[in-house]
């Protein structure tokens, strides 16, 4: 959904009211800038990625960038409000420190090296197979069927969506992993 003409007018009206009152002129300019920023944005709803209260967000995006995020006023939990973390998710999404390319650290190396996805994924798949095949136990000491590997461990993640959690455990367990843990344990 885009921002409707009615919302737009409502917003302009508010800004005008601000200008007519005791608010400084710069507020008026800022409001105009803000209005322009949101013009033509797609609005999608989301939920805050930090704590588990589950506050609703409205995410305004344009040309592949998120330009503004605010508390969802319709959401019954937060009714538009957000804490400092929730209020700053825009900077999380577009943080200058985000890693945007896969990287690799070779044995005994002192640095990271940027690599291609295909290479990294193929290498990882090989490592998984190698370690799994080498450490796989079809039976335990008692001769009971166990079909597991104790040579690979995994942690993560409460930051994933439910659907991702489900397929991740499904895949890890198909490899025979028993060391599967995540944030809930700590």
């Amino acid at each position, binding site marked *: 959904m885009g921002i409707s003409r009615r919302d737009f007018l409502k917003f302009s009206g508010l800004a005008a009211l601000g200008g007519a009152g005791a608010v400084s002129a710069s507020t008026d300019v800022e409001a105009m800038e803000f209005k322009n920023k949101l013009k033509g944005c797609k609005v999608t709803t989301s939920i805050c990625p930090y704590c588990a209260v589950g506050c609703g967000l409205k995410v305004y995006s344009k040309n592949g960038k998120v330009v503004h995020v605010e508390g969802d006023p319709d959401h019954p*939990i937060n009714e538009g409000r957000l804490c*400092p973390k929730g209020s700053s998710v825009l900077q999380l999404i577009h943080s200058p420190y985000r890693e945007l390319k896969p990287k690799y*650290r070779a044995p005994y190396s002192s640095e990271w090296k940027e690599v291609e996805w295909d290479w990294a994924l193929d290498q990882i798949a090989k490592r998984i197979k190698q370690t799994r095949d080498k450490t796989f136990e079809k039976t*335990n000491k008692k001769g009971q069927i166990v079909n597991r590997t104790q*040579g*690979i461990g995994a942690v993560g993640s409460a930051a994933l969506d*439910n659907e991702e*959690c489900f*397929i991740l455990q499904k895949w890890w367990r198909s490899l025979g992993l028993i060391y599967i843990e995540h944030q809930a344990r700590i």
Partner: protein
Amino acid sequence: MGSNAAENHPISFRWVTKAKEERNATLIHVDPRYTRTSSQADIYVPLRSGSDIAFLGGMIKYILDNELYHKEYVKLYTNAPFILNEKFKLPEELGGVFAGYNPKTHSYDRSYWAFEKDENGKIKKDLTMKHPRCVLQLLKKHYSRYDIDTVSAITGTPKEDLLKVYKIFASTGNPKKAGTIMYAMGWTQHTVGTQNIRTMAIIQLLLGNIGRAGGGVNALRGESNVQGSTDHCLLFHILPGYLKTPRASLQSLKEYNDKYTPKTKEDYSANWWQNYPKYSVSLLKAHFGEKATKENDFGYHWLPKLDDGQNASWLVMFDNMYHGKIKGFFAWGQNPACSGANSNKVRKALCNLDWMVTVNLFDNETASFWRGPGMDPTKIKTEVFFLPCASFVEKEGSITNSGRWAQWRYKAIDPIGDTKPDAEIINELYYRVLKLYEKEGGVCPEPILNLSWDYGEKDKNGKIKEMDTHLIAKEINGYFLKDVVIKGKLFKKGTLVPSFAYLQDDGSTSSGNWLYCGSYTEKGNMMARRKKDDPTGLGLYSHWAWCWPVNRRILYNRASVDEYGRPWNPELPVIKWNGHKWVGDVPDGGWPPIKNPDGTINKKTKKAFIMKPHGVASIFGSGRKDGPFPEHYEPLESPLKFNPIPKNKYRINPALPLLCRKENLSQKDPDIWYNASETYPYICTTYRVTEHWQTGCMTRHVPWLLELMPQNFVEINEELADQKGIKDGDKVLIESARGKIVAKAVVTNRLRPFIIMGKKVHQVGTTWHFGWEFPEGGKGGDSANLLSPTTGDPNTLIPETKAFMVNIKKL
């Protein structure tokens, strides 16, 4: 207690202040430290970290001594009237342990905790609750030792403060009132973590506060989807929907189902887990699709099995990694080099790997461990792959909050740069490993080859072009796999199952997680709903998002009514019986109330606690590893050399497993700990601030937040600071037996010295949000988990990061 909601779950706290303003609620905050939560409280009282059971045990004694418990509720809905067998003994009779303790294995034979049964196998009860071996009387006897003087001496809480809290909270035993508790890691991160929560659950049951509007025991969970990731069981001991991971002695699906399907001879018990085989078979069908057949036990042997009694939890995993037994490792959306207790050990353990895959938004202390403090990269073999993932607005899917609401998040933009959504990364790795096994063969390839993976259109090589999370959500919900007639109703093959009540154990249904059955049905994606009607006025919002199970917003709500189905508090009904059916929230089963209007028992009724085999809540909890009633034990590291509870000679939780209690260690051992030592005389606790989150990986890289809270600090009380010559803003070294960190001093009277067993004890506190990797040069400080011990709760093995011993020194 155990939470600082105003700072760590700020928007939840909005509703607390609203309850104060609009409903005249009283807010009590019990915490070692005066926080922003305390500042809003009607009553704030301090307690020493690690003494919660003593504090709450005193409240149980107060409630029982003054007969303030909700008698009808306790009689109807709990096991308080149940009678114990004669072998059962309390710690006061056995020097500090319950009956059945084996000091060699540090574990209990729980058959000593069994109830007495009659000739028909039914549990013997005394509904007057006067029998000396009935649960209520044993509870009274057990907590008779928790008198106000003893409790005050252990907790450091002044007696008048204890009484003030006891009196107010116990007043909610009045059926017209309700009381609730918001707790967080302040309760779980202890060697008695599970029992901390059990103590409060017992209080809530005594006061009749479970299942009620404004009642309950609320875990304020820390991560946006930690409820969902727990429900989907990224944990060693459970499979999605809290099914058990198979054990080696269970060599067939039948043995597995028999072992975990509880049986009961109690009248009127729904014993809902009797449906276990329906959920386990439906899960196997979701994992292995058509390859899972009755003939091959639905692929039961394609699931890995742990040895009987084997523990593969966090602390054990890193211990094995430290000793070189684990060779490959995934750190997916997690930073264990800062979040793991005794982080130095974790960081050293990572050096012993062959390879590690990390998936994250940002570089962090785990991914870059090899270039961290004290590390020589030229000596570290571990290969590290860093895969950059997309953020939450660059993909679509659901997350589940603390109140079990599964809420849908939409995609706003395409993944930034060369990042990929986690689901795509999982798919890539799944596909490439699959192809290697198809091409080269390998050891036991069947589980990999037979895994069903239909989450979108495939290319000519069989690889999914783009993962469709709706298809995963539907698989989690479950399908009818053939035309079936259930309770006279026809369900067509390929349609979505509307509720777990329709799941089957014959392979005719699938469901990746029975608890989420109903979340995505033929009516649509229930998790994406946005209708805001609230007919009960309780804020249930039943048509907003979706809540497991079956969209029930308040669990065990059948306990919110009396035996005729009348709400204990008619002004705030959660559900009520209108003569034909329940109205209000989705009830815990549609069965009628216990009694007909004429006072006779309704033969169709079922007891309120449907997930418990006997239909009642467990004041006596025989399922725990460390005792059926909570008993105070000291933290592994504490200022005391003994357990101050009368007649108890066990200082620490006697059921702590060996890894958590290693003794006579050399100073070089990574698990070293000291108790009541002059070298480490101060209690230390860890916590969080509003501006940062967990290890800080997702907040230290947010400029606004880092500016607000740029570095770690340690809170020190004025008296201790004076003794140590520390002033506000000084650099301070905090040192434990295992590690040290540097933090800026915040000298404050928000922390005060405690008088424990007549002696003055100081406590300090610090956050665990920082790490050496960022901000650059480690200028924010490093993780407080470098200090915390390698020990944890015997039931959960959640580490004890809330109470340990340190020394501090001005730098």
